[in-house]
């Protein structure tokens, strides 16, 4: 703090503005203009009223022996004038504010749409590719349309820096739009009272510089993806050599599965230098195409490969979708160990879902203190008493059921505050698996030491 600050400037904001906060959207500028307009009109009339009042108090103060001078008790002209002036003033204010309101109410047709879910007591944002996050990330160079719904009661999306507010009502969709004018992070509040955690139902909006949003979304949504990313490569040269000239059946299978571009790329490589980024990207794309195809398992092809227990266990389940891709990645890793990682770190992914995508952290702590829900610390593997007298052990099945049907088996003592909505259809099996991995990790079980 600068020591020359006076009492008043201490109350000012970091950018020196006194009333309105930081203005970071196109509508903020409009609203601030209307605000100033009304402010100065109000200030004028207030000053006039107080001035007259004080002036009269001093000038016409009662003194002994003085009588009131005769004066008419009404005057139609004056009454009409001071009825007409407020009428004109408020009509102007209405019109000015209405014009600005129309601009901030009607979204442009090409706005980029993000879905918002409000629930006790967190905000969740669903991006067009299906990724969900508890923070609102937006590109700074586009108009954004938020389509909002509630999982339980009424909430209200409030972004002070954008001068925006709209209730989020169960049973209907509400919409707001904005176009940011500044990059950076701004506060989001819930403005409609919603119970115990109302004042903690806050998050941030992150406005990205051009390209930043797409990069963030790609990164974030590949968190759980079993496909290969550049940073997963641990030895790109060895991998490329294997594909170019390996003689084992798996290498041959890959070589024959390459696209024309892949074949041309690998042939053009000299076979010894470190592959450049273009070649790496090409290899990743080729391998991901294979991973996303049918199962690469074939008893003959994998005859000389040691299949890991983890791989065999997954294969047992006849997986589909992303798990099928994961199985292919396991198989390929078994055949070519040390060239790339076996897949995303499920504990880290689980943590991300706990903190962000699922927003579990707003009700379940990791420090053993009960919040709205039981703490996750040391919960895995313990037996717990339920409402209704039953006792269960917290295992994979119980965690899974608690996510899909939260009210089915409530831990004793949490019935009254049990507000958890179902995550059925909102978290994939793989994501639930990640949460379970996270809950089984040393940090959360408390077995770290």
């Amino acid at each position, binding site marked *: 703090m600068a020591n020359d600050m006076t009492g008043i400037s201490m109350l000012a904001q970091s950018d020196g503005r006194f*009333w309105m906060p930081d203005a970071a959207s196109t509508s903020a500028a409009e609203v601030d203009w*209307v605000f100033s307009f*009304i402010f100065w009109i109000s200030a004028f009339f207030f000053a006039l*009223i107080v001035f007259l009042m004080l002036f009269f108090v001093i000038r016409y103060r009662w003194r002994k022996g003085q009588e009131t001078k005769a004066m008419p008790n009404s005057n139609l002209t004056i009454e009409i004038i001071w009825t007409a002036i*407020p009428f004109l003033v*408020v009509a102007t204010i209405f019109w000015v504010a209405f014009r600005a309101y129309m601009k901030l109410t009607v979204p442009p047709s090409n706005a980029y749409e993000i879905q918002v879910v409000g629930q006790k007591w967190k905000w969740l944002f669903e991006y067009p590719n299906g990724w969900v996050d508890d923070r609102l990330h937006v590109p700074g160079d586009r108009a954004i349309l938020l389509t909002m719904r509630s999982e339980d009661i009424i909430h209200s999306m409030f972004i002070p820096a954008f001068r925006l507010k709209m209730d989020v009502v169960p049973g209907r969709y509400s919409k707001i739009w904005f176009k940011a004018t500044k990059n950076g992070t701004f506060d989001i*509040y819930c403005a409609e009272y919603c119970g115990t955690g109302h004042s903690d139902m806050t998050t941030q909006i992150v406005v990205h510089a051009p390209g930043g949003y797409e990069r963030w979304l790609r990164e974030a949504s590949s968190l759980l993806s079993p496909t290969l990313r550049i940073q997963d490569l641990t030895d790109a040269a060895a991998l490329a050599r294997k594909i170019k000239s390996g003689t084992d059946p798996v290498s041959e299978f890959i070589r024959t599965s390459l696209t024309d571009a892949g074949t041309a790329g690998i042939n053009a490589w000299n076979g010894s230098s470190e592959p450049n980024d273009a070649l790496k990207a090409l290899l990743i794309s080729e391998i991901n195409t294979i991973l996303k195809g049918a199962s690469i398992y074939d008893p003959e092809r994998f005859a000389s490969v040691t299949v890991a227990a983890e791989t065999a266990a997954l294969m047992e389940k006849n997986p589909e979708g992303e798990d099928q891709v994961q199985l292919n990645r396991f198989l390929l890793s078994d055949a070519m160990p040390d060239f790339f990682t076996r897949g995303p770190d499920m504990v880290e992914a689980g943590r991300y879902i706990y903190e962000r995508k699922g927003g579990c952290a707003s009700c379940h702590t990791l420090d053993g203190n009960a919040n709205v829900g039981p703490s996750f610390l040391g919960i895995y593997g313990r037996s717990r008493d339920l409402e209704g007298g039953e006792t269960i052990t917290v295992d994979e099945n119980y965690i899974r059921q608690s996510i899909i049907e939260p009210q089915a088996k409530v831990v004793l003592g949490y019935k009254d505050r049990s507000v958890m909505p179902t995550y059925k259809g909102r978290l994939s099996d793989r994501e639930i698996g990640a949460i379970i991995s996270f809950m089984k990790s040393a940090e959360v079980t408390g077995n770290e030491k």
Partner: protein
Amino acid sequence: MTTSLPVEHGAEPTGTEDNYLTCDRGIKSWIFTLDHKRIGVMYLIFTMGSFLLGGVFALLLRTELLTPQKTIMDADTYNQMFTLHGAVMVFLFIIPGIPAAMGNFVLPIMLGAKDMAFPRLNLASLYLYVLGAVFAVLAIAMGGVDTGWTFYTPYSTETNTAVIPMTIGAFILGFSSVFTGINFIVTVQKLRPKGMTWFKMPLMLWSLYATAIIQILATPVLGITLLLLIIERALGVGIFDPALGGDPVLYQHFFWFYSHPAVYIMILPAMGIISEIISPFSRKHIFGYTFIAFSSIAIALLSFLVWGHHMFTSTQSPLASTIFSALTFSVAIPSAVKVFNWLATMFRGRLVLKTPMLWVLGFIFLFGIGGLTGLFLGALATDIHVHDTYFVVAHFHYTMFGGPVMAMMGGLFYWWPKFFGRMYKENWGRLSALLVFTGFNLTFFPQFIMGIRGMPRRYFNYPEKFEIFHQLSTIGSYVLAFGFLVVFFTLVHSLFRGKKAPANPWGSATLEWRCPSPPPHENFIEPPLVTDPYDFSILEYDEASDCYHLKPSAKLAEDGEVA
């Protein structure tokens, strides 16, 4: 306490020795009284008790908000505190405060009548008030309510706090309010004595009449709404809860259809008091009588057309919001007209700066801020930003406290000699007005700043950047509380040690000052002489008794005119 007051009067000849406090003794004489003055006094005691209760909740809230996170209570307790503060202040204090407590006492006397048109209905309204209050206290005893005083669905349908007793309480209080309203309208229509034409009525009566229109027309809607809420909660019939096929926004429409007019139930009688005080304390006829009178009626009627301005962000259609915004601004005009006429009344007057007038000056200052900040809320673009923030909290305290509470205090100090026959210490009264005014501004002005900067209301926890404003506000609330302590002490002291009040200590020309202080049981022995309520030339000051009397010449002239 009050029943044991001595049976003495001011200098005015009275014709009777007993007054309404002493004519009948014993607890039964109060419980079964049909005297509008006694009913008014009991209302005064109960509403002031409620004000104290609501005030204690407010101080606890402000203390909690000294720091972010927990200071003295947890989030759930905090949520109950602001709900109880709001519910008690609105339903038990401000709505009945001026009309039922003061209106009951002064309306028949100002009119020149012996009592209300329906004294039994009047007593019934008091009984209902007490019954409603019992339910509210029951709700507090059963663990409180945490919905906010607005009982918004679907939260109020699903919270496991004592919503049903509290809403039953509000439902019953609504009937109490309706009974009072019916009585006021019928009394003003039917019991005007000879010579009391509509335009000879004091402006207080116009505003009480306008208030009664709202009480009768709007309150039943609240009753039905709360009943529907109770049915939904108790029987699971889907009305407002979308999970049961209902519509939560419908509840908001119903609720504000009553609760917006209800703010005019609070402010209109307050404006009436201001008109009553400002004229005698300026020693000058009120300016623009007809405009002030009709502006009350205009406010009452327009108040029914603006409820949607509470719902600009509720997902109601932008078209509806636009229409409600336009209609909302229309209410500003009659309010502004009143303020200008009050100022014009002061113009070239002889301003007597005694306690009641200080509360009036405070009213004009604070209500001015309250009214003008309403422009930001009626305007569409700015309301979106400040809705449900501390800006709204500050605004409605400037209007609901700066308006009705300031006026009620002014009225209390103005009519106190009439109510109880005692004069208070003038300088203590002035000090209390000054303290309340200062404390109030310190409490609520910082809330405008916080609100504009984005601090949402009903927040237990808050970002660090708002802490300084919360702390200023809390300190202000302590000053405010101290101011009311001085009010309480000044008034109670006067009951025991105060000088005996003359019939007309202020030199007012309205009829309540023609009967002794305190008034006899039947107010007037003979029908009073009806004169212009703001013509002070008919009075003369008597230094010996420190009292104003009717000039004999005025009496004769009036007699001639009436005859």
